[in-house]
């Protein structure tokens, strides 16, 4: 029996579009729009001004708070604007706009550090922070913060998230197939930084080539184990992954460290490896550009700040009339209204759905079929939460654990009445949080 969790769904995976396509290097953007907030936590303060010349890897945003991560130039060229620009989250974010000079000159300060064996845990953590490394699975939590549990919290297990359960996305899949050693090197750095000797790399069994590559790469490293997981959404959800691999449940309202676990994305590990090998901070990532709405779906190595429109052009442009452009996967991604929004550190995919594929449904009455109840990986009662949200009964919604919803979308996906359950619960969460702040 493959390891997994209770609940979840089996949407069509649609990974065939790109899963055999090696990562290609995307063109440098003409204009890199680099938001000063690409992570959970405090935004960065720009440390360059209009007219400055910057080089690749040069710090352009300083992180003052603990929960933050600095931001670096992804191209060389001239700073032409420091102003709020459209962002994939939907609200404009202060951004540094660099006009690329096409030279791709590397900043002098970018030098390989000493080898991992010579580094102390604190040096590793500092290196990770200074390189601006954040979780690359989407949420964008600053990695170094995860690696620094507060006093009294012990970590005994590291889990590398290679599940990549969102349909369509193959960025982590290709990374693990093409650069498995980098994933392992990054993981070893995390293990050394935290003093943890046990690590698992969880991969859904629909990526047998990645499982094989990672299995080969971990040979000879003690304490690292590749765990094939059942292919089921949201297998890559942090809580579902921890349960599947360790059988532990993160307490409601708690963090993985409460059950002595740190979860890092495979892409995050590779980014750490890149810093260890070259000293280059996080300035690029693999993004899957896919969907029926693009002519030639691809896995691209993209500089942070590249507008999604340029990526779609590099994939042959739109195939027919596009209906939705989504940053991320179809289950949790954010639909965009404009193509100017840039790729950020957490952009695992750009999904274009054809207009004919984007259907609008009129919700029908709930027939209490309980498909949502069976699908919820947190074991909530989405149908109740949806009704409570529709009636504005926020106190009751909180009592039914609305805040524990991970917004994975399973309930809305399965609902035969097309009730926007996830969206309603999201609304309830926002209202409950707002009332708490008062």
């Amino acid at each position: 029996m493959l390891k997994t969790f209770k609940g979840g769904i089996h949407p069509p995976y649609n990974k065939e579009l790109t899963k055999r396509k090696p990562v290609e290097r995307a063109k440098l953007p003409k204009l890199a729009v680099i938001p000063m907030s690409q992570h959970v936590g405090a935004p960065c303060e720009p440390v360059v001004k209009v007219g400055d010349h910057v080089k690749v890897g040069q710090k352009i945003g300083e992180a003052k708070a603990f929960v933050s991560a600095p931001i670096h130039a992804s191209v060389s060229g001239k700073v032409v604007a420091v102003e709020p620009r459209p962002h994939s989250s939907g609200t404009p974010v202060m951004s540094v706009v660099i006009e690329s000079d096409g030279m791709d000159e590397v900043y002098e300060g970018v030098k390989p550090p000493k080898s991992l064996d010579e580094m102390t845990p604190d040096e590793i953590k500092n290196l990770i922070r200074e390189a601006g490394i954040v979780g690359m699975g989407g949420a964008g939590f600053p990695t170094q913060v995860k690696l620094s549990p507060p006093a009294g919290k012990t970590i005994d297990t590291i889990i590398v998230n290679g599940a990549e359960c969102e349909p369509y996305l193959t960025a982590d899949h290709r990374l693990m197939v093409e650069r498995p050693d980098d994933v392992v090197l990054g993981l070893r750095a995390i293990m050394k930084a935290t003093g943890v000797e046990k690590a698992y790399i969880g991969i859904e069994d629909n990526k047998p080539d990645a499982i094989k590559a990672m299995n080969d790469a971990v040979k000879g490293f003690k304490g690292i184990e590749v765990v094939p997981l059942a292919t089921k959404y949201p297998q890559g959800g942090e809580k579902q992954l921890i349960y599947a691999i360790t059988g532990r449940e993160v307490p409601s309202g708690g963090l993985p460290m409460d059950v002595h676990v740190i979860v890092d994305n495979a892409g995050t590990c590779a980014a750490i490896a890149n810093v260890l090998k070259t000293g280059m901070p996080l300035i690029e990532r693999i993004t899957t550009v896919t969907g029926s709405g693009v002519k030639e779906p691809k896995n691209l190595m993209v500089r942070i700040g590249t507008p999604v429109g340029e990526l779609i052009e590099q994939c042959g442009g739109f195939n027919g009339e596009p209906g939705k452009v989504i940053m991320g996967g179809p289950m949790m991604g954010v639909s965009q209204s404009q193509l100017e929004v840039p790729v950020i550190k957490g952009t695992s995919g750009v999904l274009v759905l054809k207009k004919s594929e984007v259907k609008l449904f009129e919700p029908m009455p709930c027939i209490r079929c309980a498909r949502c109840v069976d699908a919820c990986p947190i074991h909530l009662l989405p149908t109740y939460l949806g009704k409570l949200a529709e009636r504005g009964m926020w106190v009751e919604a909180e009592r039914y654990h609305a805040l524990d919803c991970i917004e994975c979308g399973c309930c809305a996906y399965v609902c035969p009445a097309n009730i926007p359950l996830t969206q309603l619960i999201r609304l309830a969460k926002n209202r409950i949080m707002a009332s708490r702040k008062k």
Partner: protein
Amino acid sequence: MGEYRFLTASSPHIHSGESVQRIMFNVAGALLLPTLAGVYFFGLQALLLVVTTTLAAVLTEAIFQKLRGRPITVWDGSAVVTGILLALNLPPGLPLWMAVVGSVVSIALGKMIYGGLGANPFNPALIGRVFLMVTFPVEMTTWINPVDGTTGATPLALMKMQGVSTDYVKLFIGNVGGSLGETSALMILLGGLYLIYRGYVDWRIPASYLGTIAVLSLVLGKDPIFHLLAGGLMLGAFFMATDMVTTPVTRLGRIIFGIGAGIFVVLIRFYGGYPEGVSFSILLMNAFTPIINRLTVPRIYGEVKTR
């Protein structure tokens, strides 16, 4: 890139494609199996009865919605299911005008006054049936004998009044007197298993319902196989106790629902005045559904275990 307008909406951006309509028409499709058995054993009058109740149910719903100025939604298939189910619960020879009355009551009093689809606490077809039993007790207990078309007693009544048992094979195939759609356990099983296979019915309800009756029959010294096969139990277990709208949404709740309904059947059949008890058992448990739901809220992932 051209000028396109992109649709923006909150995630998720894909849907399973499942619909209420598809569920209803699958249930209706599965109900055709016991319907065919009914028509085979009781002839064209049975077919006429099914068509009548179904048309009456759909029309009642449409008229009700029209009168209240609501959108007409009879194409969702739920009224069709209620109509067929009602017919399957009636004596095959029931006068058609009585069947129409039953359909009107099912839809109007069983469903629409509560707000329509999804809002009714009780199974509408059973509301209609119980109304007919109370209003037309003679016609509702006049059973046709499938062999010669004469009237006679059902196997359950024979057992209750005269202690006469009926052959298992006859019961299983359905060559016995009874309601239109309850006679053939075989056809009901086929339809029920199809719905379980497609995920439209949770196996927990029929399993716990039938299991409870089998165990209690055995304990009380009755013939469990006879009691499973006779009367409306199979039809009730697979097609009425499993009605999504009126049964619990939690897995544990469904098991409790099945056990509770099973206990009621045993109480009524063995100790009550009626030979049958399926309709009442399901309606009674329907009344408990809200409280069962409340008492069986699952422990969520990561919820602190309290002692």
